[in-house]
Structures are given as C-alpha cells and as structure tokens.
C-alpha cells in the first residue's frame, strides 16, 4: 500500500487523483519526508505552468471577491506540520450536490430505531480524514435521515461487517459497514436493485476506506424489488452487472 501511495506523488501534484486517492496520499504525506520534499518542488513546477495562463480577469471579479471575503470567516491556523496542501472542502461539497439527486427532507423523529442509529454511528466513527470530511458529512446527514425514518429497518450485508438500512417512506436504502475487503485494482463496488422479473437497476458505486469503512446511499422504489445486490465493477460503474454478485440481500 505504501508503495502505491508513493506512486501517486506526481498525479497528486496535478490533482489527477480521485477523492479516495487524495485522502490516502494526504494521510501518508506527514509521515514521509521524501514525498513531502518532492511534492513541494512539483507543486511549484505545476504552479509555473498555471501562472503562464495568466489572463486579465473581468473587472466584476474583484468586487465580487471582496464582497464575499467581507462576510467570510477565516479558518484558524492548524496545529502540527501537516498543512502542506490546502483543502478545498466547499467545492467538494458542491460536487456531491451535483452528483446526488436532491433529497426530499424527511422530518427527523425524536425517537428513531435504536439499531439504525447505532449502525450510523459506526459509519461516522470510521470516518475519513480532513479532505473528505465535508463531503462525508453531507452523505452522513442523508444516511442519518434514512436511518431515523419511522419505518427504517436493517438487514445484514455480507460485505465485511455491513448492514443495509432501508426506509420505504424515504424511498432509500443506505449501505454501510466496516472491514469491507478492497475491490480488485481498477474496480469499485456497485449497488443494484433486483426486481421480480430478474432485471437489475444500477445504483451508486462506492469504495471502502483503507480501514474498510464505507457508506453509500441509493434512491429506490421498494415495490417490485426483491433483492439488493453488490458487484465489483470497473471504476465509474456499469449499466448492467459485469460480474457475479459479491453480496445479495433478499428483501
């Protein structure tokens, strides 16, 4: 794994990494003097390329930026020596918004299924590092909404120590767990809804963290659905499963 993370150095310097790769590399970085030194010089190199693109910005930009700066609180300095690269959490949050369909708001019930809450806290406790924090929070919030729905119920998922939490009222199913094995190189997991007639509807893809923690959320209509399946698919997911299921949950 360390060797793989080392190998991401150049790709990381030009942002040619997925959020998961970025997180893995940033986790590795404070402990690796070699990478930190070389990364510094490669970021300067990339910045030279970037600066060569300089173009006169529209006049409106300055006023917009200063206006927004005037009402934007600054983050405090971070302790330690790990702040080599700035994070860009707000844009990641927007990215998630663009990818995930807008979810209906479901009133949070004061008394929720205790088992479901316990499951969610597993996912949160296993959470990720700073870079993915805000995007994860958005997902965790959505998952919490499903788990706290009055009709939420959980089912075991044979993918490490994992469960599904389903809510018909929310038209959603959340998958989460720990100790999930890492998919083969170039592959990620994908959720599927299996219908009565045997057809399968593609759901989202997901990757476990280095420690095997994962969380995913899928919108679905329960009517006619007989099972939830998980397969390994090439990065980006597939329209139809291209491999046999690694886990199936009958509904």
């Amino acid at each position, binding site marked *: 794994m360390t*060797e793989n993370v080392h*190998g*991401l*150095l*150049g*790709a990381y*310097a*030009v*942002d*040619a*990494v*997925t959020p998961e790769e970025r997180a893995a590399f940033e986790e590795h970085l404070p402990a690796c003097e*070699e990478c930190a*030194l*070389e990364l510094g*010089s*490669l*970021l*300067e*190199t*990339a*910045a*030279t*390329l*970037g*600066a*060569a*693109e*300089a*173009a006169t*910005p*529209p006049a409106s*930009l*300055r006023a917009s*930026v*200063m206006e*927004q*700066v*005037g009402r*934007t*609180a*600054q983050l405090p*300095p971070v302790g330690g020596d790990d*702040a*080599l*690269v*700035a*994070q*860009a959490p*707000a*844009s*990641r949050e*927007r*990215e998630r918004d*663009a990818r995930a369909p807008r979810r209906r708001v479901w009133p949070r019930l004061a008394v929720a299924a205790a088992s479901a809450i316990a499951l969610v806290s597993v996912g949160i406790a296993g959470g990720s590092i700073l870079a993915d924090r805000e995007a994860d929070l958005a997902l965790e919030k959505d998952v919490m909404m499903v788990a706290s729905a009055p009709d939420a119920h959980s089912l075991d998922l044979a993918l490490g120590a994992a469960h599904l939490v389903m809510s018909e009222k929310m038209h959603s199913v959340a998958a989460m767990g720990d100790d999930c094995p890492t998919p083969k*190189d*170039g592959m990620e997991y994908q959720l599927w809804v299996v219908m009565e007639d045997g057809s399968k509807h593609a759901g989202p893809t997901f990757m476990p963290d280095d420690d095997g923690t994962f969380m995913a959320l899928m919108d679905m209509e329960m009517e006619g659905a007989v099972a939830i399946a998980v397969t390994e698919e090439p*990065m*980006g997911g597939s*329209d139809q499963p291209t491999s046999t299921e690694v886990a199936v949950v009958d509904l």
Partner: protein
Amino acid sequence: MSAGRERRLRAVPATAATPGAPATGADELADLLVQSGRGDAEAFERLYDRLAGSVHGLALRIVRDPQIAEDVAQEALVEVWRQAARYRPGRGSARAWVLTIAHRRAVDRVRSEQAHADRLMVHGPRHAPDLDDQDAVIDQMHAEWQAARVRQGLEQLTALQREALELTYYKGYTNRQLADSLGIPLGTAKARIRDALIRLRDGWEVTT
C-alpha cells in the same frame, strides 16, 4: 521501483529558491498571504492584484467557459482568504499555494460537469480518447503559453509526457482515466505524469 525513485528523487529544501518561481517578489507575496491570514483585508487586496490574473487564467484554461471560470476564480480566491492562516511560508511559495487551490477547484468543477454528462449519457465510452485532437491541442497550448521558459520546458518533454500533462493538469483526468484513455497500464500513467513534472522542474532549474 525504489531504485528509480531514489535516482529521480532530489531533496530540495522548501525554503530554497523554487524552480520557476519569480526570483523577486516571492517573499512579498508570502508576506501578503501571511498578513491576509491575520485578517488584513488590505493585504488581501494587494495579494489579489498580484495573483488574480493567474487564478482566473488557469481556471479559464481548464473549464473553458468564461462564466464558469469567473465563478471558479471567485470561489478559489475566497478560499484563499478563508484558509490563509494555514499557509506556511517555509513550505513553499505563496503563488504555488494559491494556484494549487485554484487548480483543484477548477478540476473539481470539470469533473462534476463530467459526472453530470455521464449520468445523462448512459451508454458509450466514459472517457473517450480524443487523440486526433492532440496535435491541435498542443499547438494551441503552445500558442497560449507566452512565457518563454514555460515553452522551452515543454519542448524538452517527450510528446507522451506533454500529452499526459495536457490530459491531467489541463483537462482534469485522474491517473486512472489517463491510463484508460491511452490504453496504458496504471503504473505507467502515474510514472509518466511524475516524470513529466520532474523534467520540467529540472529544465527550469538549469535555465534559471
């Protein structure tokens, strides 16, 4: 692998003059960024005047659409303000710190647009290689790159290295998408990006 790494790896003190960085004014930019981090709005305005052109130009190069580029530049510059207290002068130049934020923001935007397009287009290749377009793209790159040093540095790269930077740094491909679109192993793709940057860095070090 590790032997190759050792040979290519050269420790450069973060405080040393950085390749390609402007010889003068770098300290001043760092000061302005540090002062911005302490809430000094006037320092931030001066920083803006020095770096907004690069931030905006880079965003425009990557996202192409002028309106989106302006949005991205604004987000990046506000993010610079928000995070300024986290900048450490000993770790690198202020310019690189700011442009790293801007680049990441622009690439994130390109990818979220791509993800949106992918959802609409259920079938078909996810990241079709457009190699026919490569020559035109590189020509255009050259036309746009005004700084002679940058041009010279790029000329030192192999065509494959230039292509790797074009698809990643300027188009937002991940290393895996680069490998897939060129039909090369993932390890080759990662190494090619890194080799290209190292050659650029070393070339600029020699000429400056």
